[in-house]
C-alpha cells in the first residue's frame, strides 16, 4: 500500500507542470489552463485564518534556504489596529548554484502573481513588493506585464473579484548585493538604504518595512501557495516524506550533462538525481563524481562517498532530513536547492577559494568577524591554492571560520564559514597536498583520491 502511494506521487509536478505550455507566460493561456482558481477560492470562500491554517497543514517550509515553516511565519504577523501590513517577495536569488526562482519568474510569472495575491489577502497586505536582484534586469518587465494583465482581469487593484479586498503589487530592483537576500537587509534595501542586516528581535513580523508588520517569503514558497489552496494543505502534505512535504525546485549545475531546474517530490535518491536521464543525466565525458554541494554554496560540501550514502550506510535522499543526516560531521543541507556537482578533475581548494572570494565580496562589513574574517580566509586560501601555503594555514583557516560562525548579526557569517569548514573536514589531505607537493599542485589536480571509496559501516 505504502509502495503504491509512493508510485502515485512519483515525479509529481505542482509548480512546473504547465511551464512548457506555449504562451503560459500570458494571462489568457495561464487562465485557460486553470490559473487564478486559488484566488477565487481563497478570496470568495475562505477567511484569512483559514488560509494560514491550510498553509500550516501543508507543512510547506521556506524555499529560500532556511526551511522555516511558512505557515508558522505567517502566524507570527502582528496586527496592531490601524497599522498597514506588508508582504514582500524575496526574489533576490543570489546563492551560488541557485537559479530556480529566475526560471519560475521568466517562464510562468502568473504562478507567482497568483500566489502573491492569495498570500497578500491572508496577511492583509494591500501593497505587496517583489524585491528582485538587480542583475535579473529583464525579468521586471515580464512580472510587470503579468501584474498589468492580472489587474486588467480584476485579480489585482481595487475590490478584487468584488470581495472588497484591494491589492497592488510593485516590482523593486536591487542593485547587486547578495546580502539583500537576508530578510532584514532586504527590508533596509527596500527602504532605500545600504543592505545592512538588522538585529532581531524585533522580527519583521512585528517591525518590518517602514516599521510595519512584514512577512518576507521566497518566490518558490509563494508559488507553492497556489497548489496548497487548490488541493488543500493535507493533500499537499501527502507528497514527499516526513517534514519534507510537497515538491522542491532544484537548480542543478557544475559537472553534469543536463544542468537546469528540476521539480522533485523529495522521495528520490541523490544518486538517481545525478545519474538518471530525467534529471542531471550523469557526469560528462564518463568522469567520476568527486564531491557535491547539494544546497547552494553555503551548505557543507560532501565527498562522493558521503553524498550517495549516509554514514550509517543508508541511501541518501533529496530531502531536508536525509541531506542533513549526520549533522555537519557527515551530512549537509537542502538549503536553497542549488545543487553543484564536482567531477574528479576539480580541485576542492580552488573551489573553496572561489567561494571564499564570493563571501568576502558580499560581506556587508557591519560585523568585524565577517568583514575581517572573510577577507582573511580568501587570502589564506589563495596562498594554499598557489602553492605558497604552510600546513599551519589549514589550522588557521579552521580557527578563522570557527570565530566567524555564530558571531555575526546575520547568517552570512555562518554561510561563509561552513564551506571552508566542510572542505577542511572532508578534504584535509587535499589541502595538505597543496603544501607538501606545492610545485606539483600547480601542474595537476589532486584528483579523485579516495573520496568515492565505500565507507566502512560497522554492523
Amino acid at each position, binding site marked *: 500500500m505504502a509502495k503504491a502511494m509512493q508510485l502515485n506521487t512519483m515525479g509529481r509536478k505542482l509548480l512546473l507542470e504547465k511551464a512548457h505550455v506555449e504562451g503560459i507566460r500570458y494571462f489568457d493561456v495561464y487562465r485557460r489552463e486553470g490559473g487564478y482558481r486559488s484566488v477565487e477560492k481563497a478570496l470568495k470562500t475562505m477567511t484569512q485564518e483559514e488560509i494560514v491554517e491550510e498553509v500550516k497543514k501543508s507543512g510547506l517550509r521556506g524555499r529560500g534556504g532556511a526551511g522555516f515553516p511558512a505557515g508558522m511565519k505567517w502566524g507570527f504577523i502582528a496586527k496592531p489596529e490601524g497599522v498597514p501590513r506588508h508582504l514582500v517577495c524575496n526574489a533576490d536569488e543570489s546563492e551560488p548554484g541557485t537559479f530556480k526562482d529566475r526560471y519560475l519568474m521568466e517562464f510562468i510569472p502568473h504562478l507567482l502573481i497568483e500566489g502573491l495575491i492569495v498570500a497578500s489577502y491572508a496577511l492583509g497586505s494591500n501593497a505587496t513588493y517583489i524585491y528582485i536582484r*538587480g542583475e535579473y534586469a529583464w525579468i521586471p518587465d515580464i512580472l510587470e506585464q503579468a501584474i498589468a494583465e492580472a489587474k486588467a482581469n480584476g485579480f489585482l487593484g481595487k475590490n478584487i473579484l468584488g470581495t472588497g479586498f484591494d491589492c497592488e503589487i510593485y516590482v523593486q530592483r536591487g542593485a*547587486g548585493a547578495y546580502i539583500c537576500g537576508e530578510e532584514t537587509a532586504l527590508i533596509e534595501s527596500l527602504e*532605500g538604504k545600504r543592505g545592512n542586516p538588522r538585529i532581531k528581535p524585533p522580527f519583521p513580523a512585528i517591525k518590518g518595512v517602514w516599521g510595519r508588520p512584514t512577512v518576507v517569503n521566497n518566490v518558490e514558497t509563494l508559488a507553492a501557495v497556489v497548489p496548497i489552496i487548490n488541493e488543500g494543505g493535507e493533500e499537499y502534505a501527502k507528497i514527499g516524506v516526513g517534514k519534507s512535504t510537497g515538491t522542491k525546485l532544484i537548480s542543478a549545475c557544475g*559537472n553534469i550533462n543536463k544542468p537546469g531546474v528540476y521539480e522533485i517530490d523529495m522521495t528520490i535518491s541523490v544518486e538517481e538525481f545525478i545519474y538518471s536521464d530525467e534529471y542531471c543525466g550523469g557526469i560528462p565525458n564518463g568522469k567520476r563524481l568527486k564531491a557535491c554541494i547539494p544546497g547552494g554554496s553555503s551548505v557543507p560540501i560532501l565527498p562522493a562517498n558521503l553524498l550517495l550514502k549516509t554514514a550509517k550506510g543508508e541511501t541518501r535522499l533529496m530531502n531536508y532530513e536525509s541531506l542533513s543526516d549526520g549533522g555537519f560531521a557527515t551530512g549537509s543541507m537542502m538549503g536553497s536547492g542549488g545543487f553543484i556537482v564536482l567531477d574528479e578533475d576539480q580541485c576542492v581548494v580552488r573551489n573553496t577559494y572561489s567561494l571564499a*572570494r564570493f563571501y568576502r565580496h558580499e560581506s556587508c562589513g557591519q560585523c568585524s568577524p565577517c568583514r575581517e574574517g572573510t577577507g582573511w580566509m580568501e587570502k589564506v586560501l589563495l596562498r594554499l591554492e598557489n602553492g605558497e601555503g604552510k600546513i599551519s594555514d589549514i589550522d588557521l583557516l579552521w580557527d578563522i571560520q570557527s570565530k566567524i560562525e555564530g558571531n555575526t548579526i546575520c547568517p552570512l557569517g555562518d554561510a561563509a564559514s561552513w564551506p571552508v569548514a566542510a572542505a577542511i573536514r572532508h578534504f584535509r589531505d587535499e589541502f595538505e597536498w597543496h603544501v607538501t607537493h606545492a610545485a606539483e599542485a600547480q601542474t595537476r589536480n589532486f584528483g579523485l583520491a579516495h573520496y568515492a571509496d565505500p565507507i566502512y559501516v560497522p554492523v
Partner: protein
Amino acid sequence: MVQFSEEKLAKVKEIIARYPDGKQKSALLPLLHLAQDNFGGWLSAETMDYVASLLQIEPIEVYEVATFYSMYNTKPVGKYVFEVCQTGPCMLNGSDNIIAYISQTLGIKVGETTADGLFTLKTAECLGACGYAPMMQLGKHYREHLTKDKVDAIISECRTAAAANN
C-alpha cells in the same frame, strides 16, 4: 546640467507613488538605476546630488547607497560592459579561461576600459545563471554558455552596433 526629461520625471513620480507618504527614500535604488541608464552609464557626484534633490534627502544618503551596491558605477565605464561571473559553478565550467580570453582579445585587464571607450571588462560574483555557465552580463541581458567563438561574435556585434549608432 543633469536633468531628466519630462517623460522620465513622470516615471520618477510614478515610482515614488509606490511607497507610503514620507517614505520616498524607498525610491532611491530604482532612481539610481534610471539615472545611471540616462546619464552615460555611471553616477557622477552631480547625478547623485540631482537624485538626492528629487527625493528631498541628503546627498550623503545617496553616496552611501551608490557605493554599497556593485551595479552602480561611480566611475565612467565603456559603452559595453562585460561582467563575467567568476564564482564557484562558473569557475568549475571554465570562467577563468573566458576572462583571460576577453582580456587578451581586448588588450585590457579586469577593471579597465579600452582606449576607444567601447569596452570595459569586469568580473562579477554569482549572477544566478549557474546552469548556463560560463556566462556574463551585457547591459540588460545575460550571455550564456560562453565559448571563445561566442565571445568573438559578441565583440563584433558590439562594434557593429556602435558603428551603426555613430
